[in-house]
């Protein structure tokens, strides 16, 4: 997937928030287990922070240049849908300041 190698061109940092145990975060955990290795191998300089905390709703945060951030709630999405969302974010590109 060519968009996967473009992550570090678009984002400065990716953060994924999830809960350690709740079922609403299970797809997110699946997504991480399946995709983290590839994403990291293709984008070694991109920090992909996985931050777990009990009771939080799963969210994906993307940080661009100049501190601009976008966040996508991942509640209710399957692992594949999360993948699609990430691709969307990559294709949307850098937001206007």
């Amino acid at each position, binding site marked *: 997937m060519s968009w996967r190698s473009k992550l570090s*061109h678009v984002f400065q940092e990716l953060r994924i928030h999830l809960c350690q145990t709740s079922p609403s975060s299970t797809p997110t955990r699946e997504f991480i287990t399946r995709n983290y290795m590839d994403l990291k191998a293709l984008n070694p300089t991109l920090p992909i*922070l*996985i931050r777990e905390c009990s009771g939080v709703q799963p969210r994906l945060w993307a940080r661009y240049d*100049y501190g601009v951030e976008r966040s996508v709630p991942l509640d209710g999405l399957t692992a594949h849908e999360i993948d699609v969302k990430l691709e969307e974010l990559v294709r949307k590109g850098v937001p206007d300041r």
Partner: protein
Amino acid sequence: MATTSGRRSAKLLQRIATLTPRLKPRPAVAACDWNPKSLQFWRCLHHGGDGVLLVPDVGRERKTSGSRQLASEGGRLPSSSASGGLRFATSAALPAVGAKVAKAEEMIEVSVDGQSVQIPKGMTVLQACELVGVSIPRFCYHSRLSIAGNCRMCLVEVEKTPKPVASCAMPALPGMKIKTDTPLCKKAREGVMEFLLLNHPLDCPICDQGGECDLQDQSMVFGSDRGRFTETKRTVLDKNLGPLVKTIMTRCIQCTRCVRFAKEIAGVEDLGVLGRGGSEEIGTYVENLMTSELSGNVIDVCPVGALTSKPYAFTARSWELKSTESIDVTDAVGSNIRVDSRGPEVMRILPRLHEEVNEEWISDKARFSYDGLKRQRLSEPMIRRPDGRLEAVSWHDALEAVAEAAHQVKPEEMAGIAGKLSDAESMMALKDFLNKMGCERIWSEGDGKSANVDMRSSFLLNTGIASLEYADLCLLVGTQLRWEAPLVNARLRKAVRSSRAKVASIGPPTDLNYPHQHLGTGTETLIRIAEGRHPFCAEFGRAERPAVIVGSGLLEHSDKSAVMAAVEMIVKHGNAVRDDWNGFNTILLNAAQAGARDLGLVQGARAGNKEIKFLYLLGADELTPADIPADSFVVYQGHHGDRSAYRADVILPGTVYTEKEGTYENTEGLTQQTSPAVPTVGDSRDDWKIIRALSEIAGVRLPYDTANGLRARMLAVSPNLLRIDDLEPPSDFSFTLKNQFPSTVALSSFPKAVENFYMTDSITRASRTMAQCTAAFFGKRE
């Protein structure tokens, strides 16, 4: 103090009650809940009448660890009727280290003062009484040390025994009827008290322990009003234990708590009892100093003024001091402390009880480095003029100078470094500010520029400090645990002592205070173990709960990825990471490191590595001037005029941990907050506020104005930083997701991460006491 007439004693107690409003029950108890050094504690017993004692609660709810739950299952807790909110603290009732604790089926019934209670088998009479709420006076008994039974103050009457029994040593048997307030008990206590005071000098006015002395308190409540001793009291020569512990051995009542502490908890067999009977003396005999890093805790365990704090000597009385609960930042353990201050000055630092982190102990660095808070403090913003001198200016001018310099360089040429003692709030503000300016180069001291902080489990102590006690095999890789995190070492020592855990270390040879195997010094040994060619592998494979602790000093090592891959292999083969047990740990060195990693203080994806022309140091002092390019503009925001201030072009004075409410995460991931104990010095401001003001002047205003706003922002970055006092365990994805083993590895020894234990950051380097310790102890250690 010991001899007051019977008629006046009731009036005296009333006077004391009015004179000491500070002794009301308050969250931070003096030493610890089972042996509080406050008259209030013993007064309750006197006025109680029915013998039921209500002990002040220790503070916020702690997550119950396994042993605490057991204790609370055991007894009926008294209702908190009369004293509005006083609860019984159960940690006093824990059996001593190494005692086998019975399961729920093995409960026995005893009766204490007529009240019957179910207690676990194996508890002593004293512990059984504690469960009911009756606190028995004692001097030599300490819940975390072995039982001595030599003070005899805990004598209680048990039905059908010919003599009163030492309740601290007597195991409670089923059907025992224990009576603690009979005339015989009272007579026994008066007698013991009289004997203790026989040879005790009349030092109360000049003794530092006055006001928080067990002997004073217990003699007021349990002692008789007159003594019969008319001979000459014996005196004992003082011993020199070093620059930290002051000894006035005449006051010693030979309870041997210090001897047992040094032997069992600290692991140094320095102290011993010499002589017999009336000529007993506690000392080292061979004129040794107490070199242990936990030596200051003997000051807390000593019930009288024999062992006191030398730096604190003659400076204050306990009732003048205002206590504030806070967290220690001199290392990454996050020990809970109580900062005692008088006015604007911190007078002393004492430990606070936290079962899961530091129990009741703190390291010497945490306890004695407070005098560095007064020296070399930056109190005004300064700008370096062209002639090289620093000139004090107003905040506006200083911030304008910084903003101007920041706009003159390109964003790729800016960088920020967070220091060892930075709190999460200021690091968040710094990151946000620099990111808004377009700068992606920010990192934390001690982490290196390109640390991988993606998975929390890769940089935290996953086992948890408290659960390390249950490990049966521990491999230390590249860490001198004793100097990097003394309290984690004390926990491991507990595991070694109580369950015969085995510890092996790879790295510089250290004396760890417990028997351990030194397998090798560097990568060669580690790789041999990882490949299975070392005899240790068999042991590791057999262990049920193995733990590996990797020092974070290794992360600056050149062969970092090889080391981590080898450790990963070892962990996998030993099955150290499973659902019920995560044995892979990293021990961090600084208080700011875990917070920095959680906030993602690493370089962004496209940070580049152009030469740095603008450097923002948030209290970062480990850089030598050689590390900083000669023509770069350096802004130093910190509290001490340490190394980096000499190179700084603009100095912005910030606050220390005793002056601010800052969030710190410890090495196991527990988020804790400090509280301001003293006002700020001079014109200094909170770190995050300085950055917020700077952002406004620089035109990139940060979106938060208040601490709550900043914390809401932190929630968006790393939500566990808002869960104060709550351990958020990291999930373990990490072991399926790491690097591959590289083909060539340079064989090298692991370096020492801490050269001088007593001077590791700007506060300790400014402290006179730490300098004395370095001079006294440094040469004596390896």
